[in-house]
């Protein structure tokens, strides 16, 4: 089946984040916990929803990804843009962060 990760926006500042295997939230997609089955995906989503209740994040959902040369790549244009930043402004969003290259 398609690989999935859990994503959300951080409550305090709205930043895009991904649920990690340690059930924390990472700014970088490559640190996300990857669900390989529907059962794993549902389990991850439950942790995400618990974090929403604990007011760490909002708008928690599963998104589809694929592994390309060892890196995770979102399947939809929307999630690719969320993972990097606006395609029209390379100086904005995650792509403008010093950590971006290291994680992509």
């Amino acid at each position: 089946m398609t690989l999935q990760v859990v994503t959300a926006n951080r409550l305090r500042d709205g930043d895009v984040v991904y649920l990690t295997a340690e059930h924390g939230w990472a700014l970088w997609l490559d640190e996300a916990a990857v669900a390989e089955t529907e059962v794993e995906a549902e389990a991850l989503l439950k942790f995400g929803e618990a974090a929403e209740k604990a007011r760490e994040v909002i708008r928690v959902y599963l998104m589809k990804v694929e592994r390309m040369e060892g890196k995770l790549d979102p399947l939809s244009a929307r999630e690719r843009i969320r993972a990097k930043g606006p395609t029209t402004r390379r100086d904005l969003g995650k792509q403008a962060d010093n950590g971006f290259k290291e994680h992509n």
Partner: protein
Amino acid sequence: MYQYDEYDHTLVRERVAQFRGQVARRLKGELTEDEFRPIRLMNGLYLQLHAYMLRIAVPYGTLSSTQMRMLAHIARKYDKGYGHFTTRQNIQFNWPKLEDVPDILADLASVEMHAIQTSGNCIRNVTADQYAGVAADEIEDPRIYAEIIRQWSTLHPEFSFLPRKFKVAVTGSDHDRAAVRVHDIGLHIRRNTKGEVGFEVLVGGGLGRTPVIAETIRKFLPKRDLLSYLEAILRVYNQLGRRDKLLKARIKILVQSVGAERFAEMVEAEWEHLRDGALVLPAEEVERIRAFFAPPAYETLDVNQPAFEAARFEDRAFAEWCRTNLAPHKTPGYGIVNISLKGIGEAPGDATAEQMELVADLAERYSFDEVRVTHEQNLVLPHVKLTDVHAIWQALKPAGLATPNLGLVTDMITCPGLDFCNLANARSIPIAQRIGKCFENLDRQYNIGELKIKISGCINACGHHHVGHIGILGVDKKGEEFYQITLGGNAEEDSSIGQIVGPAFAYDEVVGAVETLVETYLLERRNGERFLDTYRRVGIAPFKERLYDAH
């Protein structure tokens, strides 16, 4: 300009304090997101793709220099150094942190601004002609009535939870620059046969999934009845608007379902209870508000200004900019300066903090301290002496604000699209940027003449694609961005909804398709025809033929 009285100040300050408390409670966990979401939306705070987005009201598109400087300050201190001017004459900041928003609202309150009713199912920011008070063909300044409507509609207890959002636009000239026919209520100031001034009332216009041109339900409404009649319309809508289905909840669906005539009868019946009540608008109140919009102290000048004419004669680039971006003013010796936010390759409607500050400085020095925001996402200095226009142009040029393209093919309305928006299906800004580059050559743009391209990244139509001469709508086709093209839309007094030309185009094909459409127009046009005139004369067939033969 209108200045807050004690009621306005109190209301806005109280709202800042309330929202500060609500944000604190949300962060502490005393409010869930379900509880907090409607509260943040009532204060203009959305969650978009990358971050929160704060939409700030610019009432009827009028800003003072002080207010513009505050927007620059907010852009720099709390955001990423820029803001985005929208088709509702508002400004949006794309990167504020939730915890900073109360401070932003407090800063705004200090300059008589806020974000109240910029979202939610309520009466939104009332928009108006950007040339209000200065257009030569104006009957009366629409801002007087937009302000009166703002006061009536702000926190109106009966209309705070309407079936859906509600947008009102007012124009005071025959030529409609405020797109009143695509609003829930459009008010067109008219003079009746007795010479009295009142309003033609249009209802049920709108874009989105179901585009509709508003219908006139009253040809002439006396000024005294403005608020009671609006209240009657809103009451009928509030009672009968579909709350069960989001997509059928706008007033346009109600008007379409019962018919404009029947809808007008219902409004008139409701109005009978209201017309002589507390909402009668006293002439002295209109005059009190009118005083805020009194013309500034213009000098008595000659229509001909030799120094200005000489500058135009000597400087071709300046003359070109004047040709498109300088509009006639009702006062001799003055002009209306349009500042394009459509630099070639830039994001339409975006302005940096530095650009905002420059415009504020120029407004203070040359335009009686006033700036206007247009629904076509540009800025205006409304009161400029012709002899100052050259100096303004020289100041705008190095700041990237002297693009001479107003009303031309590169002056596109464009929504934020998938680069920012949570609802979008496809990107809009890069399409606009590519079209801009394709038609960058000014002689080519002049040859094409007036052509309005409007681009939306989804069916919600924030980019007004339905009323673009060429409309472009981003759609999702199995995860790929595609673009549907419509032709023949128009937002002015002779409004029309564009017709779909055929199957959608892939991202890389759109610019070529637009070029083909423009070439078809150039082949078909007769003397002096604009794109829209040619389209209306020849119809969609020649465009369709060339577009799909070529692919």
